[in-house]
């Protein structure tokens, strides 16, 4: 039986949420192509993650081992995945467009000499048994339907576009160790240092609630005062539009959107953000959008569930006060 290979990721010893979602994307494709789902894990000691992948729906897990595969290093990851692909010859390769996936996806495709569909939000199999994907283009203003015409068929899938399947711990599958046997010369780039900037409070990508501010905040101070007060009251993380980042009110790590973080909270409250397609590209998976904007024609009201047309300077304090009474 042919295999669909999924590039998996491990987060703190556990299978990454993005990989569980990727399996959910892969399952229906495997059914249509009468293939099985294999997940490659590049963590040194990911025994529990392998089992988790199987519970999520994988049939087989390749534990790729190599002394060069400690922490993430692009060249080592690329070399070992390319080797595995050339050896097992999968019918398709799916990668989640996480930080690592975006880094290796395109290069892996070039290395194994195939095409890749980028940034898909939906994948299916067409009547020619080819993988077909919908992907936003033009900053999300348009949608393109693209078909993979070469093998392996490769797709980079946007995270948070499908919910992971219910874990079934009774499932069983093969766990195979795969020695990548890398030559040290594959490593070209050297990571000199890696700095973690501890962001206060909740990580944006993990937050169940987010409050975002845009150019309409009119300065950096509201991010530390009114917006923060509201976020603290709701137990929310703070995000921002690119406009607010570009002016320098908040650092890039706050940016939500096409070229920023992809978030999918239960509640995203946007203040002074117009709702440009490039911003919405980063939060379209949110369950509920609520907008405060003084312009009744702002695009954001096309996406929001609830909206207030007004000046945030007047709306926010009253909203925060009322929330404090309710919580």
């Amino acid at each position: 039986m042919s295999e669909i290979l999924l590039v998996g990721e491990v987060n703190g010893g556990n299978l990454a949420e993005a990989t569980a979602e990727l399996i959910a994307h892969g399952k229906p494709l495997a059914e249509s192509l009468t293939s099985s789902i294999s997940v490659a894990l590049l963590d040194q000691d990911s025994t529990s993650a392998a089992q988790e992948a199987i519970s999520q729906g994988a049939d087989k897990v390749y534990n790729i081992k190599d002394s060069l595969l400690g922490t993430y290093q692009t060249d080592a990851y690329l070399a070992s995945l390319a080797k595995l692909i050339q050896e097992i010859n999968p019918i398709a390769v799916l990668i989640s467009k996480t930080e690592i996936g975006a880094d290796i996806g395109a290069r892996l495709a070039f290395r194994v000499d195939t095409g890749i569909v980028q940034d898909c939000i939906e994948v299916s199999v067409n009547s020619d048994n080819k993988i077909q994907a919908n992907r936003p283009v033009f900053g999300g203003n348009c949608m393109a339907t693209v078909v993979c015409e070469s093998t392996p068929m490769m797709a980079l899938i946007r995270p948070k576009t499908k919910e992971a399947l219910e874990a079934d711990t009774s499932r069983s599958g093969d766990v195979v160790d795969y020695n990548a046997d890398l030559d040290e010369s594959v490593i070209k780039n050297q990571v000199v240092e890696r700095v973690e900037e501890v962001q206060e409070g909740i990580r944006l990508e993990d937050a169940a609630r987010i409050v975002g501010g845009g150019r309409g905040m009119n300065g950096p101070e509201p991010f530390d005062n009114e917006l923060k007060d509201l976020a603290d009251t709701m137990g929310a993380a703070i995000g921002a539009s690119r406009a607010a980042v570009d002016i320098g009110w908040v650092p890039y790590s706050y940016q939500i959107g096409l070229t920023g973080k992809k978030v999918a909270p239960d509640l995203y409250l946007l203040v002074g953000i117009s709702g440009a397609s490039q911003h919405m590209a980063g939060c379209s998976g949110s369950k509920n959008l609520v907008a405060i904007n003084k312009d009744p024609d702002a695009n954001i009201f096309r996406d929001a569930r609830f909206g207030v047309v007004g000046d945030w300077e007047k709306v926010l304090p009253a909203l925060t006060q009322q929330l404090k009474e309710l919580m």
Partner: protein
Amino acid sequence: MSFNIVVLAKQVIDPEAPSASYRIDGSAGKLEVDSSQKIAPVINGFCENAIEAALQIKEAVGDATVSVISAGSDFVMDVMKKAVSMGSDEMYLLQDEKFSNLNDSSITAKLLATAIQKIGEYDLVLAGMQASDWDQAQVPLGIAEILGVPCVPIARKIEIKDGRAICERATDAGYETVSAPLPSVITVNNEFGQPRYPTLRNIMAAARKTPITWDAAELGLSDDDLSPRIKIVDLFIPEKQSQCEIIEGEDEEEMGRNLALKMREAKLI
């Protein structure tokens, strides 16, 4: 010996153009702006950042040449000239009817890589992190694979030192510093500062400079080289139905309070 920097710059439809101005040919995967709207194309924003980065590096290393390459079929010279008038030394336009709908980025990468090799010696290839039209963020990564050189995507700072590029790049958790041996391909984001405005002197100089143009034959590319591995079967504007409930109130304060109550009622908080 002069330090040779190649910058890849793409001409794109102005991303600010309203979607109502789009003219779409879905099955051909073609999107144009209604010509009656008179919306000029622009140099992709991140590509202007790459030109800016190249000029900053040129200033830092002293003796350097900045060559800009662009591939396409219908360049608007007034737009593309900006790459030179910002301060670049040379411009190469890969222009051919066959490049009008580059439907697979492996072709675009092959084209640009071929041109880079044809130009000759290079120390650094700079590109934008992403084009604002098709949003692939992969052409430069492919070029690095074809040329067999290291690649650093999405840098926000570059320093050239002892034959290496020391790059700072943002990560989900903070940032990292990566050192890549030259030559290498580096893509940049918008953190290099505002792309500089062309000075009058550079505008005059640019006006006198003719770009070097190469077509598919001159690049030695056959039709086979240009055959795609992915196929675009449709392109459309997704429909959206607004169902926003606007919260009412006597004044904005009351609207704020009512929003809190509404969110509680809908169990959002």
